[in-house]
């Protein structure tokens, strides 16, 4: 039997476990292999394999950091199959910061030079590099995104999408048909407003809204609902024009450099706005912005600003639940609703009660809890595109849970989940629409009495 010598300083095979972004051994050593994370992990539940469990992945990362294993394609494939939903963090009795270990691991793989030694191929898998490129060149560039969403609207509104989902469905090969099924089927006008969006004329409380990247182009209704709700609460809402994509997807994909550049741009943009809070209605973005402090910890010029900024970030549900939102004015919303807790709200931001408090306050709305509401739906940022098979397996389990509640609405808190759950409803013939919790609150306000004098 062997007991590998733990090492104080990471040696790291081929540098994959080294560098400024290397996972910290102190973080890794918190794991005592108790296995409590296993039943919380969607990929472990789907496969029964330790390799696809948080405990297994932490062990693999540690083995690379300690130089006991090479970061082979197979090994990195297991890291890549992780949804980064962080349900394991909620389940972990030892407080292992799994999310940041996984981000660090991916970043230290991506941070290697393209050719680390003569005659030795780079350890960065081609697919990882391609993903990072896509994130930098499309997601982080408003112009590219706008072109893409314009094409989408053309596709959706011209009737081509309806044809390809209907009479011409067989014309597409199965794999393409499945990918097409992941696309949105609603194409409302994008939300591209900036500056002052709403609020009372007199100077009062002021917040800024993260309008984000994909969000404003593909889920503009959530922004509109958010602005209306905040307006209703008498709070001024601004959207700094200089804000950028939050960089969450970049950080998840291990492109720490791009994530840091976006973080700096956002910190500067929002500081300028002089607001009490930065309100975010995408749980994944909010989680990532709350972690800007850590992201920029090695940057002397920005570390402190980043911490200050992060402390002001609020998920919209967290923000609204702390306000007197339920005072007279809520109208009836006669719907049965089940809540899909966004992973990055429940597990990364540890916000469980706020969405429920809001839903319960809406008259007429029946909240029917599903089994495992905090289990990932398989969207996970880019995951549904990068790992379509596992994403579909995770979604299938989720849709079964949704269906057995009989609810007509799945309430969410993140655009990716909304998209995924709508695709899931179509694919599995479940009659449930996915809407952001804030949209349901907005609906309730609009159904209620107009605001008093």
């Amino acid at each position: 039997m062997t007991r590998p010598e733990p090492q104080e300083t990471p040696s790291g095979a081929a540098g994959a476990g080294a560098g400024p972004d290397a996972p910290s051994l102190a973080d890794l050593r918190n794991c005592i292999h108790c296995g409590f994370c296993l039943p919380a992990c969607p990929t472990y539940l789907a496969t029964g394999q330790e390799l696809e469990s948080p405990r297994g992945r932490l062990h693999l990362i540690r083995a690379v950091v300690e130089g006991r294993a090479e970061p082979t394609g197979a090994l990195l494939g297991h890291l890549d199959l992780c949804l980064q939903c962080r349900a394991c963090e909620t389940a972990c009795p030892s407080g292992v910061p799994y999310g940041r270990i996984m981000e660090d691991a991916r970043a230290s793989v991506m941070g290697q030079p393209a050719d680390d030694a003569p005659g030795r191929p780079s350890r960065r898998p081609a697919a990882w590099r391609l993903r990072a490129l896509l994130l930098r060149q499309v997601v982080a560039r408003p112009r590219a995104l706008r072109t893409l969403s314009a094409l989408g609207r053309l596709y959706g509104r011209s009737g081509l999408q309806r044809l390809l989902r209907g009479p011409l469905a067989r014309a597409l090969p199965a794999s393409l048909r499945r990918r097409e099924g992941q696309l949105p089927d609603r194409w409302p006008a994008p939300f591209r407003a900036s500056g002052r969006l709403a609020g009372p004329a007199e100077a009062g409380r002021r917040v800024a809204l993260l309008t984000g990247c994909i969000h404003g182009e593909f889920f503009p209704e959530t922004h509109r609902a958010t602005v209306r709700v905040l307006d209703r609460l008498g709070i001024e809402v601004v959207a700094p024009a200089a804000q950028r994509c939050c960089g969450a997807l970049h950080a998840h994909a291990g492109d720490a450099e791009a994530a840091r550049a976006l973080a700096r741009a956002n910190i500067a943009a929002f500081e300028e706005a002089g607001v009490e809070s930065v309100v975010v209605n995408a749980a994944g973005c909010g989680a990532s912005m709350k972690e800007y402090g850590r992201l920029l910890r090695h940057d002397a010029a920005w570390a402190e600003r980043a911490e200050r900024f992060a402390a002001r970030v609020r998920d919209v549900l967290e923000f609204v639940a702390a306000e007197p939102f339920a005072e007279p004015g809520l109208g009836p919303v006669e719907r049965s609703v089940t809540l899909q807790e966004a992973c990055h709200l429940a597990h990364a931001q540890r916000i469980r009660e706020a969405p429920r408090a809001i839903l319960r306050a809406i008259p007429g709305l029946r909240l029917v809890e599903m089994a495992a509401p905090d289990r990932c739906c398989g969207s996970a940022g880019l995951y549904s595109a990068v790992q379509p098979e596992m994403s579909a397996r995770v979604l299938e389990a989720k849709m079964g849970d949704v269906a057995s509640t009989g609810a007509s609405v799945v309430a969410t808190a993140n655009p990716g989940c909304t998209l995924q759950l709508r695709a899931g409803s179509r694919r599995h013939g479940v009659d449930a629409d996915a809407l952001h919790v804030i949209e349901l609150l907005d609906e309730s306000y609009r159904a209620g009495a107009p605001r008093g004098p």
Partner: protein
Amino acid sequence: MQTNAPAARNDAATPPAGDPPNPLRGDPALRAALARELRAIVGAPHVIDAPEELLVYEYDATIERARPDLVVLPASTEEAAATLAACARVDAPVVPRGSGTGFAGGALPVAGGVVVATARMTRIRELDAEERIAVVEPGVINLALQQAAAEHGLRYAPDPSSQRICTIGGNVGTNAGGPHTLAHGSTVNHVLAVELVLPDGRVTWLGGRQLDAPGVDLRALVVGSEGTLGLVTAVCVRLLPLPEAVRTMLAVFDTVERASEAVSAIVERGVIPVALEMLDAETIRAVESQARLGYPLDAGAVLLAEVEGLAEQVEEDAATVIAALEESGARTVRSADEEAERERLWEGRKAGIGALGAISPNFYLLDGVVPRTKLPAVMREVAALSERYGFRCANIFHAGDGNLHPNIMFDELEPGSSSRVLELGGEILRVCVEAGGSITGEHGVGLEKRSYLGWIFDPPDLDAMTRVRDAFGGSGRFNPCKVLPVSHGCAQGHAAEAGAAALRLARAPGVYL
């Protein structure tokens, strides 16, 4: 063996003399051929043979590591039987594995070989609410069975603290207990029959659907055999009705000793709570650092006591228990019968061992048993020994049945710390045995405690156990180097062996019987 040496024994081509033979080591062609054969049986994705992937099957919840040669995950009894037959044909060692949450090294392939993991055998084949029995596959999670039974107003009594992830197969292997062992007994009291794949691949059922099956009770031999007799592929368990009422009480004490005395005070009053658990100050601090559950941070120890039954009886029993607690010097006693509050109190107990990971990089968890009346004296000695060795020790355990779980906290990066911890562990177990107790209550003997078996069994007893093991046909090939001591199969293994040899009991072996 040096505990901290980066020894390559497990990866070496030839194991040291005396280990059971493993033809897969040093014969890559044989290993590859077996992998191919297993893939044909269970499907390619369910056989693991890449070295960097085998890494994740080298651990359980101990700090020991041992990498297997192959891992296979069968999905049915048929696949499991064909797998075992294939292994038998090439004499490959076989190590069954559930969720890998054991604290005794039972699932570690110390001699290499094929790990057969049951994580895909997760069907509840049958749940007969009227007969109050269930037939489940070994990979079914304990909590999943509890939940399925609860839908019918029933429960499966054994509830190890790791119940949210440990498997029924693993529970059978270790004869697992849990907080409610005090009232309901351990796994062996709830297993009616097992479906066993013998080491040669034949399948047999042992036991029956009723209690007291006629003939020699072979079923009971399998429960607690830690995978040395064969692979359990289904378990027929007894279910009990859920109690009408449950009351959980939390009593706060200034010292562990006071709390220990309260245990006997309760029992002396003629009430046996269904659970009686202790958490000491170190444990409370760890638990509260991870989740605010409402345990008092300034307590020396808390006792968690639970009574259940008919509503009137519970009222009466609770009053008796509270009186006993208060008379034994409890600072406060809190009572919870709301499900949510009870769950919160239990959460601290069930996540307690895991929470220690947050306050210490490593810990060594012991599983000694002492007679209830000796608790105060033994706890005093455990504290004194830990202090003498210079380690912090957290205690979280089943006080009612005297099943101690001292957790010695240490940092394996400190040179020599691991071997000193093992030495201290040996000393503590010796105290338990000398007090008339045992070396394991529920975690199993596994790898780490087999050397101590000689403290409680005479050589003829051990020989008899070896002959029983051999009768099943897996001699030394099925979970090799586990349970039985050195001279009964393996040359060496756990570092505790050296410690065990050095420690001398004050009494002759056999005191246990």
